């Protein structure tokens, strides 16, 4: 499935950065740059950028095939609780799949998502990698 360049460009702040949305009404913080709070619907929100560091709360090794190639499987997808207290789900890379553990400290990094092969655009976005091997909290 070819990706849309304008669509990717448009949501770049959510793909290349971890922008948080703070609600001035209910006080809750949500992930991604939003114009309204997903919890209370208030438009009174402010944005700030996350440091991109957090802890793996839970994870799964994924074998679900969505591509003709199985080269990338299994991949690890984790729920990461950021230092700012917000959860985000994303792929974990830079570590063997059987070495990922709950409590592992990770940081967001820019990695390749997909490409319009063979000579097309390469699309990048955030994934997570261990901040320091075997560093658990």
């Amino acid at each position, binding site marked *: 499935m070819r990706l849309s360049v304008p669509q990717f460009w448009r949501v770049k702040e*959510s793909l290349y950065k971890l922008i948080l949305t703070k609600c001035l009404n209910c006080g809750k913080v949500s992930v991604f740059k939003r114009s309204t709070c997903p919890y209370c619907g208030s438009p009174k929100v402010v944005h700030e950028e996350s440091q991109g560091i957090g802890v793996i709360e*839970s994870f*799964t090794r994924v*074998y*679900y095939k969505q*591509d003709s190639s199985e080269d990338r499987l299994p991949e690890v*997808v984790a729920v990461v609780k950021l230092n700012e207290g917000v959860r*985000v789900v994303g792929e974990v890379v830079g570590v063997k799949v059987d070495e990922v553990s709950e409590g592992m400290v990770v940081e967001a990094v820019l990695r390749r998502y997909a490409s319009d092969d063979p000579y097309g655009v390469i699309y990048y976005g955030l994934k997570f990698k261990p901040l320091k091997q075997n560093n658990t909290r």
Partner: protein
Amino acid sequence: MGAYIVGGSVVKVDRHFEYGYRDLAYKALSSCEVCENPDYVVVASALPELMAHQVDVGVHIVQWTGRRVPVVRVESGESSGVAAVEVASSLIRSGAARKVVVLGVEKVTEYPTYIANRMYSLILDYEFEVLRGVSPPVYAALAMKELLRDGFSRECFSSWAVRMHENATRIPHAMLRFKISVELFKDVQVLAEPVTLYDSFALGDGASAIALSSEPSGYEVAVEVKYSSSEVGLPAYSRDRVSELAASTKLLKQLGERFGVDLRKVVVELHDSYTPYPIALLHSLGYIDIRCELDGLDYLNLSGGLKARGHPIGATGAYQVYEVFKLLTGGFNGLSTNSEVGVVHSMSGPDNLSRVLLLRRWK
């Protein structure tokens, strides 16, 4: 003015490589005796643009069947079928139509399964979830891990699948009409640890036609659409727990509070795309604890559920409604109940959106 289901028909959920979406729709429609001469057709389908390259699928189905009746297509992800019944009921209650046919249809086998998986994953948020590698089995896995941490056993989820397969053996239109055992889970393909293929729904093509009327007296049997409601939940990544199905729990609790519905005493079809979800839901409603005993829930997913009857995505809700209708009005294939009340629960994604219908036998 009330809205009454007066009949219907379904096509076996299966890999119908020989039939396109129009053929499937026609098969369901032509075998539904009471579906003749509607004022309106509501087509439920989730993936025709992606799987069959067809926009405005409702119009092309109606044209194909040689009719000139007004038609609208309803798309609400996995809950499209129940959404279509809601729309049809509203058309009747408002007086805009006296008879409406709901036609759920989905083709999911036009491409290899991995492409169907990719299309199905789009029930999640493409920009915020899918691009980041999140797919429906990922959330099911995270939900199952939470429940395992709560004290549920792995066998609890396997047993749900075993029960659904056993139920499906009695359902003529079910996709997986064979029994499985808990032992089989040891060697089965893993989708996302700890969720396996046997914890997942069966993906198949399907079509279901249901006739609704404002005037039930002229029909042999009728079931009233007593109440319908829907609720949007938080994105799974914004919840404290993925297994917290707040929208579904709220809707089903409301049925108990407003209408005295006890799921142990009614025919009920729960959305069980992945085994953790019905377990989480029944737990949050107080019907089961971590011992996972389903005793007393005798009329629960007699169809075999999405797990074994199969899940033709946007058409599934129309199957669920047909099955509850049949079970309230004599049953099928020797399978019957003595209940007069039925509940249909449908959701899209991991409780991103939930819908319930309350059905009551009228005659």
